[in-house]
């Protein structure tokens, strides 16, 4: 079945090197916040992720925020984590998102709530990411809910999943990635890449399994402007691999912002050369305004137009 409703998908299908970005909704109910962010991303990116209570910190609902940004003319990708909702709630939200016109979804298990400000909350994790992908696929492709009920108007979604080249056990992560493909995933966004050698090796394994033939792989890029942030990520962010030489390089840099952009651009240029990588996913944390600069410097601007 061909889907024409997702711009991201259309771009990928057309063979373009896709650029996605990310925005975190506000801790608060201010719609202007979203509009402002949408404004400076407009024209630079093909799709924008909206995080779903990222690192388990309460923020505006990703679907609501995505709708607001979409109205500003952006193509949105809603992130949906299985941490906070059971199967009833998850399916209902996805139906709602589709009804609002949102057309891309990234299905995630979600960071554990112990990372956030509410470690005392009760988690759900009734579904894992693979089961969530499978559930969305069934809803979209066959119009069937998890309980077997058939819908008259199924939702429309381009379905994505996450992949972490730096997580363990390597082989098991590969098996899980394959499971996601089997469950109906159409694109992957990867964890931020600092260890490019390891990423290259991972892509080789991905190609060996033919995963790149059955899904689109977007490489994660995380521009930073301080060695401290890199150290923090290395130490505290689950599944991050930040080699010491990267930290050393940032330490020694005089103009950290410039160096951060340079490092991001270099990574983009390297991953672009790797067979099977079909785009990049930029996720600057607390430095979202740098996205256009990175895209320009990486010669990815202007973005091609697709129907």
């Amino acid at each position, binding site marked *: 079945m061909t889907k024409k409703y997702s711009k991201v998908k259309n771009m990928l299908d057309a063979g373009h090197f896709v650029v996605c970005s990310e925005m975190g909704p506000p801790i608060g109910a201010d719609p202007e916040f979203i509009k402002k962010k949408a404004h400076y991303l407009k024209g630079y990116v093909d799709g924008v992720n909206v995080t779903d209570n990222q690192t388990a910190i309460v923020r505006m609902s990703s679907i609501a925020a995505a709708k607001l940004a979409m109205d500003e003319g952006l193509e949105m990708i809603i992130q949906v984590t299985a941490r906070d909702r059971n199967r009833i709630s998850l399916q209902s939200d996805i139906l709602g998102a589709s009804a609002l016109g949102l057309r891309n979804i990234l299905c995630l298990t979600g960071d554990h709530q112990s990372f956030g400000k509410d470690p005392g909350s009760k988690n759900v994790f009734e579904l894992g990411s693979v089961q969530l992908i499978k559930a969305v696929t069934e809803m979209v492709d066959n119009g069937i809910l998890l309980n077997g009920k058939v819908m008259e108007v199924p939702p429309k979604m381009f379905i994505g999943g996450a992949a972490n080249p730096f997580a363990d056990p390597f082989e*098991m992560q590969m098996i899980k990635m394959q499971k996601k493909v089997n469950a109906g995933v159409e694109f992957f966004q990867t964890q931020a890449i600092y260890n490019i050698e390891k990423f290259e090796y991972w892509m080789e394994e991905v190609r060996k399994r033919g995963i790149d033939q059955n899904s689109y792989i977007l490489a994660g890029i995380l521009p930073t402007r301080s060695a401290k942030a890199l150290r923090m990520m290395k130490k505290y962010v689950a*599944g991050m691999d930040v080699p010491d030489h990267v930290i050393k390089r940032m330490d020694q840099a005089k103009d950290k912002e410039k160096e951060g952009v340079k490092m991001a651009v270099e990574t983009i240029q390297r991953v672009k050369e790797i067979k099977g990588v079909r785009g990049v996913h930029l996720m600057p944390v607390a430095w979202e305004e740098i996205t256009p600069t990175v895209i320009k410097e990486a010669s990815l601007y202007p973005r091609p137009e697709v129907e």
Partner: protein
Amino acid sequence: MIVAKQKKVNEVIDMLGDDFNSLLIVGCGTCVTVSLAGGEREVNSLAEILRTYYANNNRDVKIETETVKRQCDFEYIDQLENLIKENDIILSLACGIGVQHIVERHQDKIVLPGLNTSFYGATLKIGEWSERCIGCGECVLDQYFGICPIARCSKQLLNGPCGGSQNGSCEVDPDIDCAWELIYDRAVKLDKLEDLINYEPPKNWEVYRDGGPRTLIDQEYHEDRKE
């Protein structure tokens, strides 16, 4: 066994309040004795701690102690009938089951919990226990080579590790083993990695307590209940 931990003593004192003159501390001689929280030694220690506290605060409180084999069987609770009646408050050093079982027999008594019931676990070494089962009602250990992803994976994932697994550790705490690393290692050792490729559908939680509080009836002993 059931692993429990004693409540902080100041919390116990707050819980007991000022409105009583006599207290019975009841220990439980099985699980919580082994998990070093509610056996005879703990009962006696707690009694002495409370006596010291009340003596130093000039309060006259009579404290008695007794430890029974199990507080989850009425027969043992009934052995304490007189003692329970004679005292104003009963402090149970059993898991939550024991506390409620005493309540069920003695509706007019204040029965308080002295322990925080933690989990079903195994002893790793002295003073260290680890959760191994949550009593989900439908065992899946056969599919995961004897390592339960529901009890031991922080996210209860049934289809593989999350992206936070690194160097064999869980993203929640490096001291927690990643259950999926353990499952993977076992699969490799048993040469059964291909068994993990199959998609595992969402679990049926109806048989867990999501289906409401559970009661187990063995029909063999309940001929009269047969329909």
